[in-house]
């Protein structure tokens, strides 16, 4: 993997209880598949997808900065799919810090997976970078008749936590593309904003650059 292959590289990590459909979401997005009877993930799965963001969306982020010239065509998403099981927690936690975005997933037909969200948020608080973008995803909307968590409840929760919320179905491919591509757009616009902020606060002569760097979002 050479660094020249893409303009941006973002790491997205999926987390959430076991069996809420994290692997299926990733499979659907990266390979267009919905493998029935998907086994539990061991440790972490790792997938890469290069996506093209169309001109219009790039324009939106262009507005953020006149300095930046948009030589942007595509970018690479690295998607880390983590195991939901407790015994892999220490492995999955080690990926939080370098993540640009976290997709916190629960199963709308499983009250328990929703009730665990605060616990996951605590983990994010503890291990992830403070710049991380977190998206809450309610998966399995194809099983609407078995729904246990109402959309309203989830929306209220995500609003209180200041998270973007989306309901998806990996099986029917509902909102899956939207989830990842919207996230990519947001990541791009934040990255551009950051570059802008960095270039504005370039060091004054004699002052030396403020020595502590932003740890995330350094795209060389």
């Amino acid at each position, binding site marked *: *993997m050479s660094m020249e292959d893409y303009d941006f590289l973002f790491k997205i990590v999926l987390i959430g209880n076991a069996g809420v459909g994290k692997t299926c979401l990733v499979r659907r997005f990266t390979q267009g598949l919905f493998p029935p009877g998907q086994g539990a993930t061991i440790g972490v799965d*790792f997938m890469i997808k290069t996506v093209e963001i169309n001109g219009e969306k790039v324009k939106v982020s262009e507005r953020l900065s006149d300095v930046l010239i948009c030589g942007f065509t595509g970018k690479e998403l690295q998607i880390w799919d983590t195991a939901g099981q407790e*015994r892999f927690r*220490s492995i999955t936690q*080690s990926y939080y*810090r370098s993540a640009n975005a976290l997709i916190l997933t629960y199963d709308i037909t499983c009250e328990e997976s929703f009730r665990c969200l605060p616990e996951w948020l605590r983990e994010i608080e503890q291990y992830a970078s403070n710049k991380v973008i977190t998206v809450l995803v309610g998966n399995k909307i194809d099983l609407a008749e078995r729904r246990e968590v109402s959309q309203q409840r989830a929306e209220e929760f995500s609003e209180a936590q200041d998270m973007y919320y989306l309901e998806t179905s990996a099986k029917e491919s509902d909102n899956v593309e939207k989830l990842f591509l919207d996230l990519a757009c947001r990541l791009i616009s934040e990255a551009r904003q950051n570059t802008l902020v960095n270039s504005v606060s370039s060091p004054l002569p004699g002052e*030396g650059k403020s020595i502590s*760097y932003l740890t995330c979002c350094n795209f060389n």
Partner: protein
Amino acid sequence: MADLNSPQKLLRVPPPPEGVGGGRCSEISTELIRSLTELQELEAVYERLCGEEKVVERELDALLEQQNTIESKMITLHRMGPNLQLIEGDAKQLAGMITFTCNLAENVSSKVRQLDLAKNRLYQAIQRADDILDLKFCMDGVQTALRNEDYEQAAAHIHRYLCLDKSVIELSRQGKEGSMIDANLKLLQEAEQRLKAIVTEKFTIATKEGDLPQVERFFKIFPLLGLHEEGLSKFSEYLCKQVANKSEENLLLVLGTDMSDRRAAIIFADTFTLLFEGIARIVETHQPIVETYYGPGRLYTLIKYLQVECDRQVEKVVDKFIKQRNYHQQFRHVQNNLRNSATEKIEPRELDPILTEVTLMNARSELYLSFLRKRISSDFEVGDSMASEEVKQEHQKCLDKLLNNCLLSCTMQELIGLYITMEEYFMRETVNKAVALDTYEKGQLTSSMVDDVFYIVKKCIGRALSSSSIDCLCAMINLATTELESDFRDVLCNKLRMGFPATTLQDIQRGVTSAVNIMHSSLQQGKFDTKGFESTDEAKLSFLVTLNNVEICSENISTLKKTLESDCTKLFNQGIGGEQAQAKFDSCLSDLAAVSNKFRDLLQEGLTELNNTAIKPQVQPWINTFLSVSHNIEEEEFNDYEANDPWVQQFILNLEQQMAEFKASLSPVIYDNLTSLMTSFVAVELERVVLKSTFNRLGGLQFDKELRSLIAYLTTVTTWTIRDKFARLSQMATILNLERVTEILDYWGANSGPLTWRLTPAEVRQVLALRIDFRNEDIKRLRL
């Protein structure tokens, strides 16, 4: 009214060559003409009709021209008539012949087909007779064999009977000898049941007595009786018992091991080795029998049974391990320490042996699982060579499920999960200790903590690698990245933030130099006050050592990355970790490598700081003294300058003294960087003071001499060429050295030759104006 109908009539009748024909061809109908009353319109229509008439005439002429050709073609066609009749006759004859031949062939082949059918029937009849004879033979054979306790023979007969076509037997029963065959069949079925009972019983007895030859003997008989599953399950029961016995013995040995034993620290890993090697040996020994007598693709079943016993034994060993090594208590203690620093800290060194042991245990189980995977998949491959893709996938899924979901896998994943947290603690605490115990020895460029920290990080990642688990390795790489990037980098960062202390003398000088520097120096002072160094020298040294440390860190990270890469190729070649392992590892490693750049950035910041506080404020006054040396001189002064150098020698001496301090205590790379910064500064500042001075011809010559000495000196202290940095100054010296204003034209524009001017025309004029002996008008008149 008849006229009204005429156009339709004319449509059907071919048009006569002239007259009414116009009514058909023309778009203008007769009615239209009649309805016209205006002369003008009539004339217009007339004109159009005339035009149309001309067109028609032209067409007619063309058609008439073709008449000849058509006639000659007709003649040729007439001549061909008789030939065609002849051909038709021939064709009819040929068709007749073909039909005849066809019929003949049909007749012949139908006879052959009948013969074929007869032959097949005959074969079937013979086969059936054979089968019936076989049946009888089997019946007799079974009886004798059973009487002689020749179970192999009996089983072979039963096997033969089971292989017979059931429909044949059914047909035979309907024949004349039905009753006899019935009786035979009944006897055979009884014999089959009896044999099954006997074999099962004898097998059980043999198993109990541990009589391997007998066990194997009966094991081979099961598949002949169609009892593959049962045979494998019974046989593995026997094997499992062996595994259990051996394992229990081993565990007892472990519990009795003396703590002083050489391998006491990794005794549980050794127990794993013994257990897994034992099972591997069993698989190795019995795979040929299974393959020969049960066919390929059956090894999975055998191992599935064996794995149950393996799991049971693993559970026992791990239980003992957890108890004896206080694994869970240690983990909880570490967890408390990580969460809450107030509690009494566990000594990281105490964790060392247990961490090593648990990674070894995992390595053993990974090796064992990959052994099973290889054996089973190659066995499936042979068995499924003709099977459909679906069956193959189904088998692959079964295999994955067996290996991923077995208790061994789960237990080890759990242990490794806890291990990672403890290893992280070990790394963090030991790094903290190394930082706390940091010492600097005179004559060294770096202090002890850099080597120590990288030794620790390498050790921890290396240990994770030795677990053979890619996820565990990647997690440790991630944690090491975090540790280096934030915690350890912060340590170095904070040291650099204390700044390079300025001396009092410098402060005064700086205060005089410029207001910006006053502000800056007071900032420096602020920093200076807060730190706890005994003396300025110590603070200076600390800063320089930290710079060296930062550089070495950046290098060490790159080295670490390379080492890990080569270490891991071995692991990947073994095929451990699945298809994504390499990609996962590469991604984590590139994050680690990126930290190297962050240290490099930090180094640049440090250098800028050093340049700003230590170099610039010192160098600037030295350069400023240039202003106090007149370059508007006579022959006599010029000669005097020759003997008593007014500026440059002292300046060079000062630079040399200043840089010597840094050369001794900075690594060559950093020193190079620093000199580069210094030379750039000298070039810029010297240009500034030159532009503030005035020169005459001899003064220009003097400056040229001074610049040459300076460049000559700076060339000796830098490794790369500095000519480029001094290009503008050299060109200024050239200008200041001119005899007269117009001489510049010998060097300018088309005459510049290899020289690339770095000065703009305006700047050239500005420099020329520094010569007091040049007239302003002359300079203005110049065309540049």
